[in-house]
């Protein structure tokens, strides 16, 4: 495994998480966690249950205040900023568990994603772009989200996060509980997103799939950094395979 210094790159990272500790109540889940994501990268965050993967995303998104450390995005300190302000700054977030507004249509869900955008023409233009990326959603603009399959709901949840034209989105377990056909579809969609140049951080328990499409990966364990390397190197690492990929 390479040491972090060998991986460092000259250009400043788009997202830089430095030595954060954070948790719930008295419980510190994260202890001194650091990670960086360069513009255009897909970074996978993997590790056992309770490693703190989702907590990292929540801390970046301002839903948890770190007890120490700082978060920088696009060269600005964003530590503990409000979530809505981070969305305005160009960060998008797709929470775990296909969270859509179940009684609203596909189109209404997307409009909710554009809540911070005032200009109706900008919303219309963005909707068209999102439909171009997600043709399956374009076919069902009036369908009530709660009646769609799990895979389609997950796509809608990702599409909604794109409505503000974020520079980067954070995805929390996008393949959780999806049928194999839709796991493939969601990962194909993530690869398509990557090709548009958007920067991505993905937390996944389906770690092998995430590392396959990732430029780099971080392994967390018990709230601490454990390993980091390119997606391929982690995928081929014996210890990582045995400990986290199930053989």
């Amino acid at each position: 495994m390479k040491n972090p210094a060998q991986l460092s790159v000259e250009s400043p990272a788009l997202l830089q998480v430095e030595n954060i500790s954070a948790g719930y109540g008295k419980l510190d889940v994260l202890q001194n966690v650091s990670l960086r994501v360069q513009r255009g990268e897909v970074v996978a965050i993997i590790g056992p249950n309770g490693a703190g993967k989702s907590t990292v995303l929540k801390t970046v998104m301002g839903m948890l205040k770190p007890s120490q450390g700082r978060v920088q995005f696009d060269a600005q300190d964003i530590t503990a900023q409000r979530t809505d302000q981070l969305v305005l700054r160009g960060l998008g977030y797709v929470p775990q568990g296909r969270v859509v507004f179940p009684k609203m249509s596909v189109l209404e869900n997307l409009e909710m994603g554009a809540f911070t955008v005032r200009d109706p023409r900008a919303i219309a233009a963005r909707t068209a772009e999102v439909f171009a990326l997600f043709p399956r959603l374009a076919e069902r603009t009036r369908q009530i989200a709660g009646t769609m399959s799990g895979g389609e709901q997950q796509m809608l949840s990702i599409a909604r996060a794109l409505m503000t034209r974020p520079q980067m989105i954070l995805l929390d377990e996008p393949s959780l509980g999806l049928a194999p056909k839709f796991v493939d579809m969601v990962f194909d969609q993530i690869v398509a997103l990557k090709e548009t140049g958007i920067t991505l951080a993905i937390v996944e328990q389906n770690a092998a799939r995430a590392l396959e499409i990732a430029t780099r990966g971080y392994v967390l364990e018990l709230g601490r950094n454990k390993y980091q390397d390119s997606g391929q190197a982690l995928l081929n690492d014996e210890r990582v395979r045995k400990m986290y990929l199930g053989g």
Partner: protein
Amino acid sequence: MTMNGIVRVENLRKHYGGLAAVNGVSFAIAESKITALIGPNGSGKTTLFNLITSVARPDAGAVFLNEHAITQWAPHRIAARGMARTFQITRVFGQLTVWENMLAVARQRRDAEARARAQELLRLVNLWELRDQFAADTSYGQQKLLEFARVLMLEPRVILLDEPFAGVNPTLAQTMVALIRRLQTEGKTFFIIDHAMTIMMSLCDRVLVLDYGELIADGAPADVQNDARVLEAYFGSHREKPRATIG
């Protein structure tokens, strides 16, 4: 197909509004076997579990446990008869500790045997160190593991698991698989919903496939994986085989 089994359902039907969630399903599952229930998201799998365990009332049809009609029995009565389940959306007691969750379902809480069993199970799913934490403060994956451990406290003869491997680290999923196999050799019957196909196809003796509330396939894993209707509805035609590295 008429045959005896430890669990048998006869022409079960359940409608939600205009939607036939379960549309005339009959089958029996054999004792001491591991049976899979798979199908696309929204195909009626969880509804079928709900009907079998009386969490929802069928519009028509009957459920038998050891050939005793148990249709619409109170869920706790069914549990007392030896059939227990877990839920896809976890239902742990958030304001109780992990340890208290385990003992809450034990018949004799002070019983040394129950405590020893709780300890053994918690160690097995890597939750022993977290035993004094509130269940609400553990991650989604850990809550799934707690439910899995807790259902085994009841020592049921028939165990229904709704997506036990979703959101669980692949290496830990292997531990759960080993435990399920061990319990099977002790005579327990398992009925499992999950999308982790690599695990399911090697673990299960038989696979039932639901699509739009109807049984579309029933057979050995190898046969079901090559069934044209199942490929189309579930695996997706372009990547039909489960991948070796994915849990």
